[in-house]
């Protein structure tokens, strides 16, 4: 069969060589030899025809290509001849390549691709830096001080830290959509113009200017059927008529902040008061630098401006502070980067294990092919030629694995995004780009070389392949060096799996610790929801209190409801944090006389609804009204920190005293101490916390609260009932016909959502390590089976000499056990490396945990031995007579 395009030239050479040989033969016969002798003599005089043919062809220019075609053909033929091996190897590679590709696709979309704005490298995020801390938040006076162009900054903009839900109430059903309040130049900084209508301008952004909104493309299509006539129309946003001035282009997103309620759909002007002296950091700032200006240059100017402001308004900017400008991309991706890097390390390990596995399979197979290779070598194939041919075969394998890997990656990404927390899936990786496919090709080829080179070199080595006796099956024991190599590979594989499993175990342990964490209240039958109150209607304390007092009995009237209350933030949600000063005749140390603590506003009945234990004093009741003396309830952590040796009951504190005149709050008496409850971050220790009634909140606080965060509700029922959400919605509509509710979840769901990131990390690493363990088991099974097969006659002899079946079984298992033990020892060294990478992903467990390691080692041993039991039993059941006869 001819598979390379040589045609005549090849036939010509054949004819030439044959005629020479015939001539030589004739001459030898004429010299008096018998025909047979003449034939051999002629061959001796002529040389090795195959080799000569090869060498002659090599002088033809296209020879290297011919070799490649030939090698490819051989490669495919070899794979076709042993489909079991081919399918196993391709599957293993597909898993390894696929996992890497899936993660790389996400990393590519999230970390590598620039933000989808023009010249994104000129967009920067402001960061306030002091020697001890750094923060993105900026106060209104600070932003106004920065907002002077000409400092290397082309335009600068601020947006509200807290995205708000805005109630859209045009048509028959009110709906809450996530919105963001931004300053006039926000879209100019990003470099994005509306696809329809106009951008915000300075007039829109003045306090008291007519209300205007910009819509996203998705909201425009969903709610207004993509009607271009919407521009200039008035819609009702938070009970305020607002004019739609434009629609943003399709696909426009701003990812620096992530509202829990979904992607932002509505944009409104910030309308900051220019005379504000409010030092609270309610804004974040971005800017577009002028061309050719470095971030450091601009930051130096901005720092100077900030220090000027600090001279007039010390609370606005710390005296030792400076301003750093960092790429917006960094801000956008900072909370996913560590997890993605962890994942890529994990999948790299998986790929390594896959390569080791395939290398081992190849090694076993190549030693089966030793005869073939010996024949090729003795027919004149050089070692280089053999290695090249084997490598080509491997690359064929690797390429097939890579193609299958792309399919695996596509599937993985789908599954991943379903399970991923919003931090990752908001980037929504779509189809992989060309460079991702190139990456696939690259890692497949690297894998092919990685798993192929060692076996190919080994098997063609003089002592192992080339000059081996022509009948390797005569050998009684398997090649020692081959076995050493495959043993080493098993050790590596076991070690890598152990590292991955240990990491997954630590994450699982952390997740379990978090899930089992006592939240400090009763989880069961607790439903939560949110109402975003329009600022126009509810921004004074009396109106807010009226709404709460009207809604509460409506909810309580519903069947099965035992208690209900409202609160500013739920556990796991970003909590307000306020300074306070301790007043009155308290004997606290002077440096303890003031502090900062988490701050929640609650309605009467909150502690009852949550079933938070009252440890001392009393809870907040409906009698604590606007007119009655100021009260505050603190948690145990605060009591212990500030009044470690006495009862805090009766002590006085003032909240927000030094924040400025707007904030002045009444002095409050501590009336109760309650148990600690999980606050904003589940994995953080319980912080000191203050609770005050909504009814006694200052007008300024209420206006800020209503403008920035929705009002949360907790409802305790006697049992969970389906359809409760819609009943709740209609109950609230009875209070205010324009008031939608949102985010109806049980408290368990709230916690599960907060743990999503932990869960995702754990699941992903768990999946990777399970794959690694399976691959390791396959590897151990394969190698043990192969060893047993190659040692069949040895085992036969041992048995013939009186070895017991049990001792044969033990011999195979012991060998396997030794390899596992070696792998575990090496792996333990790797686990120490894990620790540093994992630190920030752990909760309640140390990076090197004896408990986790014990379980993981037991798992590796168990699976490893399980994988070797079948081959071991096969070895023990060898019939000595047959083993020796079939040799």
């Amino acid at each position, binding site marked *: 069969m001819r598979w390379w395009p040589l045609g005549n030239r090849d036939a010509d050479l054949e004819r*030439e060589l044959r*005629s*020479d040989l015939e001539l*030589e033969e004739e001459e030898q016969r004429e010299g008096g030899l018998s025909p047979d002798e003449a034939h051999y003599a002629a061959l001796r005089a*002529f*040389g090795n025809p195959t080799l000569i043919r090869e060498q*002659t062809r090599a*002088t033809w220019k296209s020879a290297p290509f011919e070799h490649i075609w030939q090698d490819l053909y051989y490669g495919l033929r070899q794979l076709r001849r042993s489909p079991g091996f081919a399918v196993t190897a391709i599957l293993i590679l597909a898993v390894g390549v696929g996992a890497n590709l899936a993660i790389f696709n996400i990393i590519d979309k999230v970390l590598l691709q620039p933000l989808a704005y023009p010249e994104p490298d000129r967009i920067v995020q402001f960061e306030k830096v002091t020697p001890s801390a750094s923060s993105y938040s900026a106060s209104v006076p600070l932003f106004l001080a920065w907002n002077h162009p000409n400092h290397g900054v082309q335009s600068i903009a601020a947006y509200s830290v807290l995205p708000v839900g805005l109630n859209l109430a045009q048509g028959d059903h009110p709906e809450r959509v996530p919105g963001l309040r931004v300053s006039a130049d926000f879209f100019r900084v990003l470099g994005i113009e509306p696809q329809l209508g106009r951008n915000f301008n300075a007039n829109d952004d003045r306090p008291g200017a007519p209300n205007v909104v910009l819509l996203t493309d998705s909201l425009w299509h969903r709610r207004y059927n993509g009607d271009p006539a919407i521009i200039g129309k008035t819609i009702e946003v938070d009970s305020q008529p607002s004019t739609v001035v434009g629609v943003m282009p399709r696909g426009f997103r701003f990812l620096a902040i992530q509202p829990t309620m979904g992607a932002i759909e509505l944009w409104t002007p910030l309308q900051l008061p220019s005379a504000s002296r409010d030092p609270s950091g309610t804004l974040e700032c971005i800017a577009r630098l002028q061309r050719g200006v470095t971030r450091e240059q601009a930051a130096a100017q901005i720092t100077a401006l900030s220090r000027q402001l600090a001279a007039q308004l010390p609370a606005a900017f710390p005296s030792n502070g400076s301003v750093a400008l960092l790429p917006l991309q960094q801000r956008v991706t900072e909370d996913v980067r560590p997890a993605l890097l962890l994942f890529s390390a994990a999948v790299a390990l998986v790929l390594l294990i896959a390569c080791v596995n395939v290398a081992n399979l190849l090694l076993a197979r190549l030693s089966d092919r030793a005869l073939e290779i010996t024949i090729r070598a003795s027919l004149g194939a050089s070692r280089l030629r053999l290695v090249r041919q084997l490598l080509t075969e491997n690359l064929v394998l690797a390429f097939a694995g890579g193609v299958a890997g792309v399919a695996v990656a596509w599937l993985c990404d789908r599954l991943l995004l379903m399970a991923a927390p919003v931090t990752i899936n908001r980037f929504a990786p779509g189809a992989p780009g060309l460079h991702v496919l190139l990456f696939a090709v690259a890692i497949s080829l690297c894998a092919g070389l990685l798993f192929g080179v060692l076996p190919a070199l080994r098997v063609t080595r003089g002592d192992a392949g080339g000059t081996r006796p022509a009948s390797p099956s005569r050998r009684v024991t398997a090649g020692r060096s081959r076995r050493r190599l495959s043993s080493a590979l098993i050790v590596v594989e076991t070690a890598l799996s152990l590292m991955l499993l240990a990491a997954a175990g630590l994450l699982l342990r952390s997740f379990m610790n978090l899930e089992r964490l006592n939240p400090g209240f009763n989880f069961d039958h607790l439903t939560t929801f949110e109402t975003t109150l329009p600022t126009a209607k509810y921004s004074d304390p009396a109106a807010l209190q009226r709404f709460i007092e009207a809604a509460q009995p409506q909810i309580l009237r519903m069947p099965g409801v035992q208690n209900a209350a409202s609160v500013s933030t739920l556990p796991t949600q970003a909590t307000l944090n306020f300074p306070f000063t301790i007043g009155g005749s308290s004997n606290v140390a002077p440096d303890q006389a003031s502090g900062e603590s988490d701050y929640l506003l609650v309605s009467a009945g909150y502690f009852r609804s949550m079933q938070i234990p009252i440890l001392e004093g009393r809870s907040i009741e409906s009698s604590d009204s606007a007119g009655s003396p100021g009260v505050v309830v603190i948690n145990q952590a605060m009591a212990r920190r500030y009044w470690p040796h006495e009862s805090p009951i009766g002590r006085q504190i003032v909240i927000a005293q030094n924040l400025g005149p707007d904030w002045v709050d009444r002095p409050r008496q501590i009336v109760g101490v309650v148990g600690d409850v999980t606050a904003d971050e589940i994995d953080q220790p319980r912080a000191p916390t203050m609770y005050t009634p909504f009814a006694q909140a200052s007008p300024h606080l209420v206006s800020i609260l209503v403008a920035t965060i929705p009002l949360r509700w907790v409802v305790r029922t006697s049992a969970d009932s389906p359809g409760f959400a819609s009943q709740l919605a209609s109950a609230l509509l009875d209070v205010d016909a324009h008031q939608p509710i949102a985010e109806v979840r049980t408290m368990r769901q709230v916690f599960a959502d907060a743990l999503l990131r932990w869960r995702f990390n754990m699941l992903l690493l768990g999946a990777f390590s399970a794959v690694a363990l399976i691959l390791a088991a396959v590897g151990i099974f394969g190698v043990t089976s192969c060893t047993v097969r190659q040692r069949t006659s040895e085992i036969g002899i041992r048995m013939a000499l009186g070895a017991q079946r049990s001792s044969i079984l033990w011999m195979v298992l012991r060998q396997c056990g030794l390899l596992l033990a070696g792998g575990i020892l090496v792996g333990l060294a790797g686990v120490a490396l894990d620790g540093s990478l994992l630190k920030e992903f752990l909760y309640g467990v140390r990076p090197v945990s004896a408990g986790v390691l014990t379980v993981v080692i037991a798992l590796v041993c168990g699976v490893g031995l399980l994988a070797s039991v079948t081959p071991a039993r096969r070895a023990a059941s060898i019939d000595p007579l047959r083993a020796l006869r079939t040799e």
Partner: protein
Amino acid sequence: MDKRNGLLQGTLDMLILRTLLFGPAHGHQIGKHIQRTTNDFLQMQHGSLYPALHRLEKRGWVSAKWEIAPDRNREFKYYRLTEKGRKQLTVEESQWNKMAEAVARVMGTPVEEI
């Protein structure tokens, strides 16, 4: 080329060209001729001529054609020296002479004796 006659790589080419100077010949004849004229000093298998012949043909120093042998009723592939090959031969001969001279000097043998 094999390692054993790697030393003679260029020399073999020259010997072939030199052989063809006497007229066209096929591979077998060339092999026999070289063996005979070197008094069997070059213990080469004449099959190893073919890679060299094909290389020379590729370079255009020899041309090849299937022709009926005058003494037998059979076709052989005859190689003949081209004009280019003739020039190449003089180049190689002068190079060879220079080298032989140089080697001879190093070995302390008078040049005339070669």
